[in-house]
């Protein structure tokens, strides 16, 4: 093989290796086992997880207030009649609600 061709091959292989290294970076393929023990890697690394619901191995009473606030009623709730001499009430902004739901 000529020196020129050999040089060309080396150059191409180097380029391929650089390309592979570029795309491998951040692709999260660094998880591996050593002596049967998982030592890290993956999308998030080897961080400890474990769902908090199971911290005391289930079951307990739920807190009263959980989940989204109830949807606003469609027809507005009837307001009490205005007093004859209205008292100044600071303007109140409506409480933000969750994004609307939609049925497919």
């Amino acid at each position, binding site marked *: 093989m000529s020196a020129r061709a050999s040089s060309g091959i080396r150059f191409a292989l180097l380029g391929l290796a650089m390309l592979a290294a570029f795309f491998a970076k951040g692709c999260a393929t660094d998880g591996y086992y050593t002596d049967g023990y998982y030592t890290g890697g993956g999308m998030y690394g080897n961080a400890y997880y474990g769902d*908090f619901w199971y911290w005391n191995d289930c079951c307990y009473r739920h807190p009263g207030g*959980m989940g*989204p*606030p109830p949807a606003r009623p469609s027809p507005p709730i009837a307001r009490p009649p205005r007093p004859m001499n209205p008292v100044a009430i600071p303007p109140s902004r409506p*409480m933000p609600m*969750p994004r609307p739901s939609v049925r497919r």
Partner: protein
Amino acid sequence: MKMASQRSTEKMMRGVAMAAGLLLTGAMALASTLGPDGERGVHHPGRFVWFDLATDDPASARSFYGKVFGWRFRAVEGASDGYTVIEHAGGKVGGMFFHPRGPGGKNETQWLSLMSVRDSAQAARYVKSKGGEVIVAPKGVPGRGTHAVFRDPEGAIFGVLAAEGGDAPDGPVADGDVFWLDLFARDPAKAAEFYAGLGGYEVNVNEDLPGGRRLTLASGGFARAGVAGLPEGVSRPGWLPYVLVDDVRGAVDRARKAGGRILVEPQAGLLDGNLAVISDPGGGVLGIVNWVSNEGPSGGKP
């Protein structure tokens, strides 16, 4: 002889070029699968935009969530830990990946909820400055953006994602998508303050809701999450995402039949029976909720 050598060299070069092309194609395929289908350059800080299940039994989880929510799963070529994207009705819910059991066989299955941020590194600095912990340092993943995982100052685990493709539009939520989240905290007011500084939330206090005083975190004009005290018997704070369903009891039945556990049954005191908490067979916990918007027949934005 020289011509034969040149032909051999050309053949090898073509092979190398083809391999490089395949590698590039593979990387591009990966690039379009690991994050939300967003609007480039558009972020909705404070909105939770991606949900990943860390589980030691992805096969059981796929079967369970497919039966309960109709989710579909697409393995990502070349991704580590068997990373699988969860899809529903043409959109993406999040992902799932293999996470081994901890020492002593401890179950470490967990849903991770990722909040949209513009800058994950800045978020990490904020978390550290407020007494939280960086579990996974900001990490760029092609086609996804930069994510990081933290413990808040009370220990609740959550993530952030600066999606390189932007966040999905802030439109109506459909059945099978994550609709709501609750943070269970020892000190809800203090926790709300921490997250307000991170997600730019407006913290609202509502005294009139069933169950008493409730804090909600709002951004972009929408309530995104609630903050409640710890359930009785739970010593560790955490985030709970809720999936929208059209029939909570039906979903609970499907979960039970698919081998899941019902941690909180639907009951009158909880959103009139429209809320429950379930666990998949591996221990991943999700809330389910039926929440009908009254903003219009199509659920238009308020």
